[in-house]
């Protein structure tokens, strides 16, 4: 798995969207049954990273060319309330947004949904 180096960590929000592998089944009338299918859990966070235009070009080449347009997992840093963590992540659907944060267009805000493994 490739590692994205040299960039400051993603800022991820404190509200992870966690989805356990639990199946809820209607078993007649108002009764329902829930069962756990596996111990896997999907954890997705809203992630933001502010970079300059050189760093953005570096990031975009890494994601689009080396990680198959964001389809692949990669090793990266992300920071939540507990500090910076290095681990495997994946950009959900490979989709991200870029918005300038300075008038001279030198600094950009990259935002995406990040699946944390």
């Amino acid at each position, binding site marked *: 798995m490739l590692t994205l180096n040299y960039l400051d960590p993603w800022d991820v929000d404190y509200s992870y969207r966690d989805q356990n*592998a639990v199946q809820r089944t209607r078993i007649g009338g108002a009764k329902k049954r829930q069962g756990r299918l596996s111990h896997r859990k999907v954890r997705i966070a809203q992630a933001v990273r502010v970079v300059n235009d*050189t760093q953005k070009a570096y990031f975009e080449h890494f994601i689009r060319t080396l990680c198959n347009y964001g389809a692949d997992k990669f090793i990266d840093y992300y920071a939540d309330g507990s500090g910076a963590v290095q681990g495997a992540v994946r950009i959900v*659907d*490979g989709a*991200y947004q870029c918005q300038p944060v300075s008038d001279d267009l030198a600094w950009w805000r990259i935002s995406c949904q990040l699946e944390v493994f």
Partner: protein
Amino acid sequence: MATFPTSLKYSATSYSVSPEVARTQFASGNTRQRMLRAKLDDMHSVSLRLDNAGLLALESFIDDTINGGADTYTGPFITDTAERTGTLELIDGTYQLQYVANDMWDCSFSFEVKNVDLSDHELIYDVVNEFGGFNFSDFADALEQAVNFNNL
């Protein structure tokens, strides 16, 4: 191919990348993503502040020159400090107008940039990896030393 009027300048811009990646989430909780096909068409959203003459120029360009927005055209897009030029397509031929004040309009629309060229990005990636980071001042200092002491 028609060219976007040079008198019209974007006042705000952003872009999004939505590649053709299929994401599957299984009942077991496992997830999988696969790239379906290479796609280098990014969607840009821009805003322009226009006077009446600018608005006329924009509407004339969209309605008459590029066939109501159906045709591609050559125009500017912004992904860094340099304004780039590429083949653009006004998405759905749609644009929004808002009256601000006398002789002042806000216009916004989205366009797709066809076949974005990422060759510069690759060069930057290689240079950064070669020098071990983005701190180019270290490299500049080393180069200055080498030049000053004839040690190239």
